[in-house]
């Protein structure tokens, strides 16, 4: 395995400072993405900065009632946090639908936002991959692309964003707090991940910065949520297609709906048009199917993944149906 220098940061400022002027340096939180990819020689940090001593491990309720999650809160602790279960069950459901107990125990909120694609060509340094090696080409386009994106892809890259947690964040709405050499700034989670376009190696809007916290938007009320994940085996596997849904119901009419997709797109995929279509409609299968069709209207299959479109459609309809059922039970 490649060698690197190692340092431990004891404050957010020092962590950011240590990162500066060394573009090949990397923070390590849980290590489940970084060390996996260092072993494969896909990530090549010259210096690793351990941020685990930073005081970013709590979930706080702000005075406006929003939840602020420290970047180092583990995926397990987040999924079981009583305030998250009460306000944002979708986040808990999405996290627990991903990875394994061990990985969730190690993985952190900040690291999950920054996880890299599972595209096998990205993970293989001998393959052509514009994301790993700009300008080298994309072996997935004409290769084995069964796992790849049907939404948000470009000629340069069709790699899927693999996170389940981020699908929930996209649906819920969240603000990230970032600390850089010139101070702190905030960014909407929807603007954090980038589409690949002509620069698939630029994956997010982070610039020499540390993710400090994620603040969740207030929940819909009353709330029904569901996360439906379709994959090759029932657990411990990335999504082929997943849908996170949130609904508020007034009698049987939909008040507000939120929908986001995973496993099918190059970034966590919020479906605004489908949401608009659902508002004010009766909560029934026909409306959910119409919303799914709108959400997938721009989907473009590759040679091996046309099956993802009906699979995603089914996941969307079931997630909306299940969310409506929960909202109804909640109303009753």
């Amino acid at each position, binding site marked *: *395995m*490649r*060698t*690197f*220098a*190692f*340092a*431990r*940061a*004891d*404050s957010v400022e*020092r962590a950011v400072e*240590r990162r500066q002027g060394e573009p090949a340096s990397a923070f*390590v939180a*849980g*290590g*489940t993405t970084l*060390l*996996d990819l*260092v*072993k*494969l020689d896909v990530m090549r940090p010259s*210096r*690793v900065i*351990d941020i*685990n*001593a930073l005081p970013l491990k709590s979930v706080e309720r702000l005075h406006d009632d929003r939840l602020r999650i420290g970047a180092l809160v583990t995926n*397990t602790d987040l999924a*079981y946090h009583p305030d998250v279960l009460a306000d944002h069950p979708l986040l808990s459901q999405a996290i*627990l639908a991903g*990875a*394994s*107990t*061990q*990985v969730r*125990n*190690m993985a952190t909120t900040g690291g999950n936002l920054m996880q890299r694609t599972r595209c096998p060509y990205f993970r293989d340094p001998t393959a052509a991959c514009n994301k790993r090696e700009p300008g080298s080409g994309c072996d997935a386009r004409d290769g084995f692309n069964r796992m790849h994106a049907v939404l948000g892809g470009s000629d340069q890259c069709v790699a899927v964003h693999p996170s389940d947690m981020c699908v929930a964040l996209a649906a819920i709405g969240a603000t990230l707090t970032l600390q850089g050499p010139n101070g702190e700034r905030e960014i909407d989670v929807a603007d954090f991940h980038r589409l690949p376009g002509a620069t698939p190696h630029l994956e997010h809007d982070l610039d020499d910065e540390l993710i400090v916290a994620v603040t969740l938007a207030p929940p819909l009320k009353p709330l029904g949520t569901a996360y439906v994940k379709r994959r090759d085996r*029932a*657990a*411990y596997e990335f999504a082929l297609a997943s849908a996170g849904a949130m609904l508020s119901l007034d009698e049987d009419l939909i008040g507000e709906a939120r929908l986001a997709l995973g496993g099918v797109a190059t970034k966590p995929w919020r479906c605004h048009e489908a949401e608009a279509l659902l508002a004010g409609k009766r909560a029934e299968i026909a409306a959910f199917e119409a919303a799914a069709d709108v959400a997938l209207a721009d989907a473009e299959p590759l040679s091996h993944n046309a099956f993802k479109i009906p699979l995603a459609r089914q996941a969307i309809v079931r997630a909306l149906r299940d969310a409506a059922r929960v909202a109804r039970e909640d109303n009753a």
Partner: protein
Amino acid sequence: MQETPEHPPEATVSVHLRLNGIPVTIEVSPNAILLDVLREQLGLTGTKKGCDHGQCGACTVHLDGRAINACLRLAVMCEGQAITTIEGLANEGLAAGDALHPVQQAFLDHDAFQCGYCSPGQIMSAVALLEDRRVAGDIGTVREAMSGNLCRCGAYQNILAAIQDARLRLHGQEGGDDA
């Protein structure tokens, strides 16, 4: 934990651990992986290497009481932490001397293995699972919670039976809802 100066790649770093209940200091390079240090440097070969990428669970150990994959952790990141491996389970747990931990005993009683290669990881996961009261005790939840441990021999049915039996032994008839 105080801030350290930067360690260059070729440096040797002292790391202080509580390993199976005993304080130890190890000297490791910055890129040393915990799993390799346990097996190669400390001679604790009970923890296994399967995939080396977080995909099989053979390397599961407890870090401050939580199950983790030792193959995805740098040894230098463990400064000041408590690590329990399969070798330390009986001594740290309810058992004394040579006696087995109740989960180890349940694996024997239920024939919860064939080749045994995955067993240390399975047992470490099962012990942490039974101690974590946030995780429900029904079969569906247990299957998911244990899904990070693959068994190439396919001993899953007996592994599940062993865990649910150990649950009774540890927590009584209610399956652990007494806490």
